């Protein structure tokens, strides 16, 4: 589904980061491993179309991602890639369900009510759908941001260091949740982490 070829990135004034070629098939689950500063976040940003690589290509279902125009790339990202951040970023002015609705609206899709309810139920937060972000706990916020990442039925779910600030129990729970949700929603999963605790939990890994 996704092919990475001859990819490298050079931040202005920084050293060149080379990325080995990589094929991600649909519904694959990968760990993106590497010590801090190796370029994991950089690669995820390139995969998400948030950053243009200096050299090489990323093709997503035969589509060369970085040949798209700015607006088309934004739209592509909204529809095909779900992103879970280390920090949960939600829009404070909107309640839980509205945060999901806006994700559909920004991607130019009509909101699928039933799908949203299923996601929220699966994640055990459907009773909190009218709550605003400041009324939710950290764990609930993370579940909500996973729901948001999946609301538009993306082919690829990426998560950058989702576990590093959590204790063991929570770290494994989050990992479990991401794996289950990705599978249930037919999305490939890429988790970038330098967290040693999770490194054995997923068979496929890509090392930087």
């Amino acid at each position, binding site marked *: 589904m996704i092919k990475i070829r001859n990819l490298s990135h050079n931040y202005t004034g920084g050293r060149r980061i080379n990325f080995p070629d990589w094929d991600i098939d649909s519904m694959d689950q990968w760990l993106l491993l590497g010590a801090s500063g190796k370029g994991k*976040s950089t690669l995820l*940003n390139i995969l*998400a179309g*948030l*950053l243009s690589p200096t050299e090489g290509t990323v093709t997503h279902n035969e589509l060369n991602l970085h040949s798209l125009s*700015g*607006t088309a790339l*934004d*739209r*592509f*990202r*909204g*529809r095909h890639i779900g*992103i879970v*951040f*280390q*920090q949960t*970023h*939600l*829009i*404070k*002015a*909107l309640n839980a369900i*509205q945060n999901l*609705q*806006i*994700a559909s*609206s*920004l*991607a*130019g899709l009509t*909101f699928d009510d039933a799908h949203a309810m299923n996601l929220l139920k699966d994640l055990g937060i459907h009773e909190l759908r009218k709550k605003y972000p400041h009324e939710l706990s950290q764990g609930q916020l993370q579940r909500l941001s996973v729901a*948001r990442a999946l609301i*538009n039925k993306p082919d690829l779910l990426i998560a*950058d260091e989702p576990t590093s600030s959590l204790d063991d129990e929570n770290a494994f729970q989050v990992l479990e949740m991401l794996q289950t949700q990705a599978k249930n929603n037919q999305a490939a999963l890429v988790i970038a982490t330098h967290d040693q605790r999770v490194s054995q939990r997923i068979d496929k890994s890509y090392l930087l």
Partner: protein
Amino acid sequence: MNIYQISFKNLYRNPLTTGLNVMLVAFGVGILCILLLASNQIERKLEQNAKDIDLVVGAKGSPLQLILSSIYHIDFPTGNITVEEAEPIMKNPMVKRAVPLALGDSYEGFRIAGTDSSFIQLYQLEIGKGRYWKQDLEVNIGSTVAKVTGLKPGDKFYGAHGLDGNGDVHKQHMYQVVGVLKPQGNVTDDLVLTNIGSVYKMHEPEGEEEHGSAEHHEEKEISNKEITAILIQYRSPMSVVLFPRMVNKNTNMQAASPAMESARLFSLIGVGLDTLKYFAILIMAISGLSIFISLYNSMKEKKYDLALMRCLGASKGKLFFHVVLEALAVTIVGSCLGILIGHLAVEVIGVYQESAQARLTGSYFVTEELYLILAGLVIGLVASIIPAMQVYKVDIAKTLSKS
């Protein structure tokens, strides 16, 4: 839920800031709207009343006062002129129509004007009820007079000495209403019209004051063979230069041009109006600055939302408009509110106005008000462009990796 609703939610989340900014815009637009409506209406009233009158001839004194008293019926007359003096002017070949006016009395604050049938032709008056006046002491009343006093054909009343309604009542003769005029939309609606003979009759038996004491014209009354002013229409526009000069030079009277005096009056009022206008513009500039500052400050927090929305698929242009809309919503609501305030204020001013002749009304719209809304739009746009430019600068990945 779409991105533009978030603009409104953001405003709703900061009611104090939003309220203050809306009020600032509303005050600026409100003051400008009041100025616009008032000056427009006054100008229109002035024009309506003076439309066909080329020149006013009356006793020497302030030309503006002569115009105000004999066309707009606001100020006191400059004095009286004798019929012997007036007659040659009225019969001059350059004059197409000359309307004599004898002022001095009033009824419940409405002026009684002694004149002849040429006044009816000049203002193209029409009778609504009853008939035109014929004999001494018969009067026609304007539509406003009828409405306010409740007088109707057949009613009788005593006139009062003086123009301000505080004078003694002339008890010896009673006027009789024989007709009510159709509404004209000008000063004639506020007049009581009769023939000059009636005015003479009112003052016949009373002791005359000295002639020629022009300084005390307020107390001076119409005496026999005297009138207050002549309203003149020229036969040809060529007379504009010659005729007034002839009057001013060769007679003991003065000639004043309504067009020139109205223009002069406006330039006098204009200074005050300009000051108020600049004050209002200053308020609007401050409102723009205030919107800019609140938006700029909120950008620090908004940066995360913007970066996030980019991740979720929003284009830069869409986000730019999302930021601009927040300012536009404030200025559009503010300027609409300002226009509402302006109209209400003008209506209230009208209610408390003493002079019925220049009464202002709030239910009067001018096209320039659209420019006020446009000005609101421009302020919103200008105030939000710099904050909105952040949309193009923000580094999504970097912003979202920080907390």
